[in-house]
């Protein structure tokens, strides 16, 4: 890792983060203030993808229901706001606790299975929560739930006004960096070793006396809560939450972002989210039916670019290996 910063990957990653960091200035300067919104979405999805990468990339748990936490966090914010509770110091912890609890229950059941069964049962749980949203007439059913006021953070006389676009942008940026740092610390800890070990050879981990189930469940819950952070931000940014937020194509797109960026790499998911959202933005500007390109693109990435963006940036020797 000595040359990590001067390598091609290091330079590109730094450049991408520099662009993200300077977008509130760069966007208006280029006459495209709209880019600030696009990049806010990139960062929010980036957090979600980073959280999924923790279990998918490092732990080998292919969760196809990860968008559920976006919706659960969003609905918690929306329902509390609907009940007149706008205090962010209350809203955010409750939303994250809901996600953590849901992840604990879902994970406890799903992690008893493996392989294909795991994919399908996480998918089914995701849909179950989706239908919970659809059938809640009180909170807008299919039409979704508008959120009229953003979370308020008032402490004494000081206030963090999330209605301020630039401020919200940098709050999101800080949370994105924090989530990447959290994954970095987790993955390189003893706990992270167990998670990565259970991906490469679970039977062996069990044989040397590690009960991988508990470790995996803990990672599953951490990822759920972290994705809840993205959900909280999304609800505050879009000022709206609907069952579509947690429909299964969203989970599929999230997996794609991770794979597109580079599965099991630290910054990859953010690069993946950026490429995914910018490409989809670009395609929907030039054509009506972007998925006719996007679908085959996804297949081609799967077939020919396993390492994703992160892999393409690596050295030749690394790619050969």
């Amino acid at each position, binding site marked *: 890792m000595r040359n990590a910063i001067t390598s091609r990957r290091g330079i590109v990653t730094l450049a991408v983060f520099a662009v993200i960091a300077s977008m509130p200035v760069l966007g208006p300067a280029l006459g495209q203030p709209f880019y600030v919104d696009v990049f806010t979405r990139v960062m929010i999805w980036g957090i979600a993808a980073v959280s999924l990468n923790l279990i998918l990339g490092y732990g080998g748990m292919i969760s196809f229901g990860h968008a559920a936490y976006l919706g659960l966090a969003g609905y918690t914010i929306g329902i509390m706001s609907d009940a007149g509770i706008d205090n962010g110091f209350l809203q955010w912890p409750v939303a994250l606790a809901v996600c953590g609890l849901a992840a604990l229950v879902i994970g406890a059941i799903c992690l008893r299975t493996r392989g294909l069964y795991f*994919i399908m049962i996480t998918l089914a749980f995701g849909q179950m929560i989706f239908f919970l949203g659809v059938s809640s007439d009180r909170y807008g059913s299919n039409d979704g739930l508008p959120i009229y006021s953003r979370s308020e953070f008032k402490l004494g006389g000081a206030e963090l006004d999330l209605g301020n676009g630039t401020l919200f942008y940098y709050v999101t940026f800080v949370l994105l960096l924090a989530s990447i740092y959290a994954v970095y610390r987790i993955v390189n800890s003893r706990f992270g070793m167990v998670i990565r070990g259970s991906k490469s050879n679970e039977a062996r981990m069990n044989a040397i006396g590690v009960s991988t189930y508990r470790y995996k469940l803990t990672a599953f819950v951490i990822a759920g809560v972290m994705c809840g952070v993205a959900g909280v931000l999304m609800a505050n940014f879009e000022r709206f939450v609907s069952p579509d937020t947690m429909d299964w194509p969203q989970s599929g797109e999230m997996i794609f972002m991770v794979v597109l960026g580079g599965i099991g790499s630290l910054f990859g998911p953010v690069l993946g989210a950026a490429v995914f959202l910018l490409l989809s933005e670009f395609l929907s500007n030039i054509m009506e039916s972007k998925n006719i390109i996007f679908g085959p693109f*996804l297949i081609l990435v799967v077939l020919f670019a396993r390492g994703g963006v992160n892999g393409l940036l690596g050295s030749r020797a690394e790619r050969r290996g």
Partner: protein
Amino acid sequence: MTFALVVEQTLNGVQLGILLFLLAAGLTLVFGIMDFVNLAHGSFYMVGAFFAATFAQWTGNFVAGVALALPATLAVGIVVELVAVRTLYARDHLDHVLATFGLVLFFNELVRLVWGPEGRSIRLPVVLDGSVDLPLGITYSIYRLVIIGAGLMVALGLYILVNRTRIGMLIRAGASNRTMVGALGINIKFLFTIIFGLGAALAGFAGMLVTPVTQAEIGMGEQILIVALVVIVIGGIGSIRGAFIAAIITGLIDTMGRSFLDVLLLTVMSSNAAEAAGPALSSMMIYILMAAVLFFRPQGLFPPRGV
């Protein structure tokens, strides 16, 4: 809750179960033999429905429309296998899931381009339209009975195909040991293509059957696909018998839950609470069932023998 209503809803449940079985049979065959997860299976259901709607319009006859749509859907399945799926067998499940997710996006858009965003409906022939008097003063839609009958015949045909024919023998042998079947000189790639196409045609057939009742529309495959996945997980992945039993159970539970759960809940809670909890709980019931099955029997109710 009259007796006639219960019978009617039971029949509706069986009918949904039959449709689910037609989808689940293909999924479970493809998985059992090729270890391949196909999220695009619901796309064949949708494509079949659109083909049937178009061909029925051209010929002016629903049955002729289905007869033409079946080989067309089979062909689509074979092309998809040859172009995209074949290269994926050697990959892991994550790649299967992602690539077939890409296929779903592609097919939804393709159908939008070819048929437009509007749904298509099929008018039934007069003979099938209307209802029939059953014993005990029950009237039931003729066409829904036809769906049940057609599905049962397909199930029987599939049973005979898998258990009594040479190709069925190869299918069963392929499911238990692919490599060995290949080593014995069977063209396993060709077998895969045929099975994939067969599964696509079965899913398409389900779509064709359902179109006169609802209509052919974009995205119709996704919701039922996920329920079909639930079915094969409950039944035990790779088992046709399991898929059949689980499909009927799932169809019945889903239909009965939607019709009677709020009435049942009324007996234990206030009417407001029941009205709120009824729809939520009934749409979640099959997922709860699946979670329960997996919790107690992680391999499903009827795991295939010898695997």
